[in-house]
């Protein structure tokens, strides 16, 4: 099933799903259709690029964190696989 989604800024590397989505559903992006590899809840993020380990994640046109491991497009992006060091001791 095709799911409504949103890419906020052109350089973003994630899309937001605008309805609850199931693994195997698809979203439409300027770079073609992407099949979801996970169940993804309303307003959560899905990868629209293939990430190398450590690669930055962009939303709102800005870096919001980085991927811990290499991650293919279609993956649910959240705190289980994306990290961010601002305001924490990790930077030191």
């Amino acid at each position: 099933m095709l799911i409504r989604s949103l890419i906020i800024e052109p350089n973003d590397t994630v899309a937001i799903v605008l309805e609850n989505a199931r693994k195997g559903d698809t979203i439409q992006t300027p770079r073609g259709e992407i099949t979801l590899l996970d169940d993804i809840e309303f307003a959560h993020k899905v990868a629209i690029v293939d990430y190398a380990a450590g690669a930055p994640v962009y939303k709102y046109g800005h870096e919001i964190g980085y991927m811990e491991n290499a991650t293919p497009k279609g993956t649910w992006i959240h705190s289980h696989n994306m990290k961010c060091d601002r305001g924490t001791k990790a930077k030191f």
Partner: protein
Amino acid sequence: MEMKFMGWRRQDGRVGVRNYIAVIPSVFCATKTAEMIANQIEGGVLLRHPVGCGQVGLDLEFTARTLIAMGRHPNVAAVVVVGLGCERFKPEELYEGIKETDKPVGMVVIQEDGGTMPTVAKGIRIGQEFARQEVMRPRVECEVSELMVATKCGGTDATSGLSANPAVGAMCDILIKEHGGSGILSELNELLSTEDILAERAINEEVAKKIYSAIYEVEDRLRRGCDERYPARNHLISPGNFSGGVSSIVEKTLGGVHKSGSALIVDVLEYAVPPQPGQKGMFLMNSDSHDGEVVTGMIGCGAQIVAFTSGRGSPTGFPLAPVIKITGNDFTYEKMKDNFDFNAGAIISEGASINAMGRKLFDMVIRVANGEQTQAEKIGADELFCVARRL
């Protein structure tokens, strides 16, 4: 032509949108006594707090400054100060700090007035006399340029940054750019990573420097606060934020900064310290920490109305100022209608324009300024009054 609303003009020239008789304990020990007084006064409102004892330095200064700012606030017509008598922040200082504005203020002190019951009786007499003079005082025409709206998000989810916060930002732009009014943005711990965006909006180099130093100071404090003994206690965002689809503090902040719109940032205010007279526009207030402390500080800066966004839903309110609750999540709105005044969800579900939604929200701000009650006011919610601590 300047846009008007109907409010109250106070002795110090500021304008209010509500007309309360505030009952303010100078120390937490006087709370029950103060509550019994407030309950017997028409338009009476209690400023309940847990502070005023065993504090030193900046921590005690925040308490003193905030309680005085509540008494001086333009939504308050008159004040009854309720002291215990031995506290470090003396009731006399609270009384004098409010009196400076020529606002009617009275004082009772439990240790001097004979214990709880005689103090309650005396406080009620003072408060009822204020109510007789003030409660029926009619609203007068005031300029919309005299309104200051505090912006806040609490219970954030991933829709907050897409719909509710941009709608609040559009409302702020209308208030500031079209009508010469003011807004405040704060909770700097939730602005980490937006320092470049905000500094670019600074009115001059000096304010840009203040923005950087305020945000880096908060970030330093957060790092010091992280405790490796309790790794599960070091998250900068809440479980509700996580399940709402917000994955990092930076993702939250980039969604949160939208609620201040695009106007120039004219100054960085200290906690609960109002701008200079005549200074108007978008302000940043130097504070971190939780919903209540931030809202209290912004109201201390003089904001008469709060625009509070919540993707997950929040029932909170403030004792002396209307809090407009806004969500951008249709599911949350349907589930918690009684706690919301405004749904910006159509930006997501129907592709509605952010500017049109901002204009609808601005119209609501004006209706609330004119007296329309918010949902939090109808419930009597008052838990957002929390004096910030600095330990």
